[in-house]
């Protein structure tokens, strides 16, 4: 009933003011969530968020915070990365002990260094670099078998998916946006841009935005080439253009985050696929209204959280805990919240950054309010990257 109501609301909101494409489909503004997110490894919680002067790219420094499992305090490990983080950091883990960090290039650096830690950040091993990682939270993915995918942009502006069989070495081209666009699946999708990569069991998945309405741009490689492998949306969503904004690894497979836009109306839903299967289970649609997706990440289980910003109002947090579950709202996070952390222990933190001040707010379940648990003044080196 809820889904039907939302779909009805979205359908009536399709007033045709979006830019029409050649085939008549509407092209909504691209959805671009921040790279700020969190992940869990067996060692503890990791989070990346921007600090400094966020209106000045070369004075914005992304920080890598780590909290050991069971501990309460965060420590900033950004300096251990030994590279300027102005372009942003991309995290990837297979939910085991390894954490891979991709460093997006900035200023005169044109490629992306990669680092891996297996010991809670005590030591970092540089993996082979790749071309510029895409400015998407899921532009780097690691499979449970150690294989990895990277969504990059080459010097001539083409998007390229690279694959590494293991240890993030020996990267080779898996496909490109041009090749995908020319495939049968790409043509039927009306491929826009590539938005995420993920490992469905051992199968590489490439996500994209599609210009053709109702098509979910998730591709996998088959004998005959790349083909559409995403879920089929209900007919009521068939008029919407779909952006896949994330491919989150889950214990049993992958969870795709889909933003469906019909005119000015936007909704978000999730689709899960289990490890070996090809069938998808979709969630109900969360109407975003005027809200923009700011950050998303795993909720510690098979689901994810969503931090959404609304113009002029407080940010909101929505949680979808897995197939069959309903959307659950949390109390509005404190101002300047960049991302959230859902620890396996059930603890929920909102991480806020205001210039050089990092604040960890913990959700008090009893009072449904946020309480400040840690403040760190990060020694940001303004001017050091220019």
């Amino acid at each position, binding site marked *: 009933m809820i889904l039907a109501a939302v779909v009805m609301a979205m359908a009536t909101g399709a007033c045709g003011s979006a830019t029409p494409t050649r085939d008549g489909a509407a092209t909504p503004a691209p959805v671009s969530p921040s790279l700020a997110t969190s992940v869990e490894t067996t060692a503890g919680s990791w989070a990346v968020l921007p600090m400094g002067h966020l209106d000045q790219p070369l004075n914005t420094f992304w920080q890598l915070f780590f909290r050991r499992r069971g501990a309460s305090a965060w420590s900033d490990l950004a*300096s251990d990365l*030994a*590279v*300027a983080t102005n372009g942003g950091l991309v995290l990837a883990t297979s939910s085991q002990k390894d954490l891979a960090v991709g460093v997006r290039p900035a200023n*005169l*650096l044109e490629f992306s260094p990669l680092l891996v830690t297996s010991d809670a950040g005590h030591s970092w091993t540089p993996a*082979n670099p790749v071309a510029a990682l895409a400015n998407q939270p899921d532009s780097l993915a690691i499979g449970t078998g150690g294989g990895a995918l990277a969504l990059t942009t080459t010097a001539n502006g083409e998007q390229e998916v690279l694959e590494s069989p293991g240890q993030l070495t020996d990267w080779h081209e898996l496909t490109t946006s041009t090749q995908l666009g020319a495939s049968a699946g790409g043509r039927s999708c009306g491929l826009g841009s590539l938005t995420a990569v993920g490992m469905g069991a051992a199968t590489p998945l490439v996500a994209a935005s599609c210009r053709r309405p109702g098509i979910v741009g998730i591709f996998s490689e088959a004998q005959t080439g790349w083909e559409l492998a995403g879920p089929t949306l209900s007919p009521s969503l068939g008029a919407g253009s779909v952006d896949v904004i994330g491919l989150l690894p889950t214990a049993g497979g992958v969870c795709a985050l889909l933003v469906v836009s019909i005119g000015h109306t936007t909704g978000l839903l999730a689709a899960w696929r289990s490890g070996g299967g090809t069938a998808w289970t979709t969630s109900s649609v969360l109407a975003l209204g005027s809200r923009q997706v700011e950050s998303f990440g795993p909720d510690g289980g098979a689901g994810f959280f969503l931090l959404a910003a609304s113009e002029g109002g407080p940010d909101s947090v929505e949680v979808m805990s897995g197939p069959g579950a309903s959307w659950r709202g949390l109390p509005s996070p404190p101002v300047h919240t960049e991302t959230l952390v859902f620890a396996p222990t059930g603890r929920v933190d909102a991480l806020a950054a205001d210039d050089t001040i990092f604040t960890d707010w913990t959700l008090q379940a009893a009072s449904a309010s946020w309480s400040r648990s840690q403040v760190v003044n*990060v020694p940001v080196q303004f001017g*050091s*990257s220019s």
Partner: protein
Amino acid sequence: MPGMSTGLQPDNPTIVSAFRSLLFREALIVLVICALLAVAWNVLREAQLRKVAAGTASPELWAHPEPIARRVLRIGFGLIWILDGFLQGQASMPLGMTTQVIGPAAAPSPAWVQHLANFGATIWSYHPITAPASAVWIQVGLGVWLLMARRGKWSQLAGLSSAAWGLVVWVFGEAFGGIFAPGLSWAFGAPGAALFYCFAGGLIALPDRRWLAPRLGRAVLAVMGLFFVGMAVLQAWPGRGFWRGQPRPGQAPGTLTAMVQQMAQTPQPHLLAGWVAEFAAFDAAHGWAVNLFLVVSLASIGMAFLSGRTAVIGPAVVAGVVLCLTDWVLIEDLGFLGGVGTDPNSMIPMALLFLAGYLALTRVPLVTELPVPIAVARPARLSLWERSTARPRHTLQGLAAAGALAITLVGAAPMAVALVNPNADPILAEAVDGTPDAVHLPAPSFQLTDQSGTTVSLQDLRGRVIAVTFLDPVCISDCPIIAQEFREADRMLGAGARRVELVGVVANPVYRSLAYVNAFDRQEGLEHVPNWLYLTGSSGALNRVWNSFGVQVEYAPGGAMIAHSDVAYVIDQAGDTRYVLDMDPGPATETTQSSSAVVLANTIDRVLGS
């Protein structure tokens, strides 16, 4: 516009000092030229006086005096060029000209105008000492030339040269006077002072006979009349912001008010600042009335000029001069205050032009006889000396004009050399990093691995000059710039590069694998430079090399990149360090980058030749 800025402050002491030093040296050359000319002048004058006394030469060649209109133009613009030349000698000219004069002038214009202006600005900023010093002497020389060459071919050539240089200034320095940009207004100096210089130079270059009829004056006034009427229409055009003052404080001021308010901020004498500020306040309160007055005045003066009737033109010329002077003081703020003013702006040249037009119309010289060169009346076969001394004043004027031309060439010759030099002068890099330190010490030995995995030691490189620097392969600012400076220096060395090894040593304790070394080489286009080695090694080996070369490599907090020294060592064929260069890219503009490459190439070249 990449070549527009050097990134250095206009008052950079190294640049200012070098500029003054060059001006002083060139002034000495000019003095020598003047001294030689004085001697030649005296010798010629003595000879002429003797001939005049003996009745074998006539004291004057011309049958009529120089037309007063032409004299007004020649002397007026001669003095203006000299003033412009002195203004070019201001300390802020080397670094301020491009960013504070050319850049702002070109900014509102279309892209093709900006490209043209950028071409000129790049030459200026690549040669920040030569270019302004050249401009000083070219303009002083042109001024002196106009003043000294009163008649004949020398004088016409001075006019032509004045027009040509004026055109250069108008196109590259004034971005066509902003005629292709929005906001064009007579009150602000449209269509650019230098265009009036061109017009005046063209008139001076006309043959003498053109000045003997009122037609020339009528034509000049017609051109000026059309210009005034056109400017009146532009000034009256609605929607351009000239009709609005500033109704209330805090509201956006009108175009004219904003301009005057901006001029009031310029460093200037207190009295003038007071006048300008008061006029700004008056215009803010009565913007509509001020613009109406301006429109009516321009249109009336223009129509009067077009009428061709001297009875109407006379008062219009007086009104025009008053209006120009008023605008010059209250709106253009004399044009040359503030440290980077290059000329007194448009009002004085404009007034000189219509005044000359009026004089050419009303004060046509009386021709008593045809101008007959004395030489024609004398025997056909004359020696050079006899011919030179046969035309007393004319010859002396020619001599003075030749001297003025020589002064012009003192500026023009280095400018011509600068034009064909695509590399920036080393002074820019020296202003950032100082000059290379000369040393003579055994270079620290090292054994590392190059980008192909081959072990390389200092011993292996004996017999070649080595330039060593330290580069972080994942650095986002300085290292890619230094790498490009090395690459550029290699190109500058030409065939000499075959005897040189350019060496980078990894300066990052984490990203030191060959994968990163090669990624950096690909990024910087160094993979095909045959004499480029990018060395890496174990953490211990790198630490030893850093320590032995005194290079600091440190982790920086807060997500900043690794901090390390920007330095280069030039090691001679025997393995001794001969120069240490600070390689901090400073503002890292295209200009300073080229300049640093020149310094590096020159330093390597010195060691190659030693």
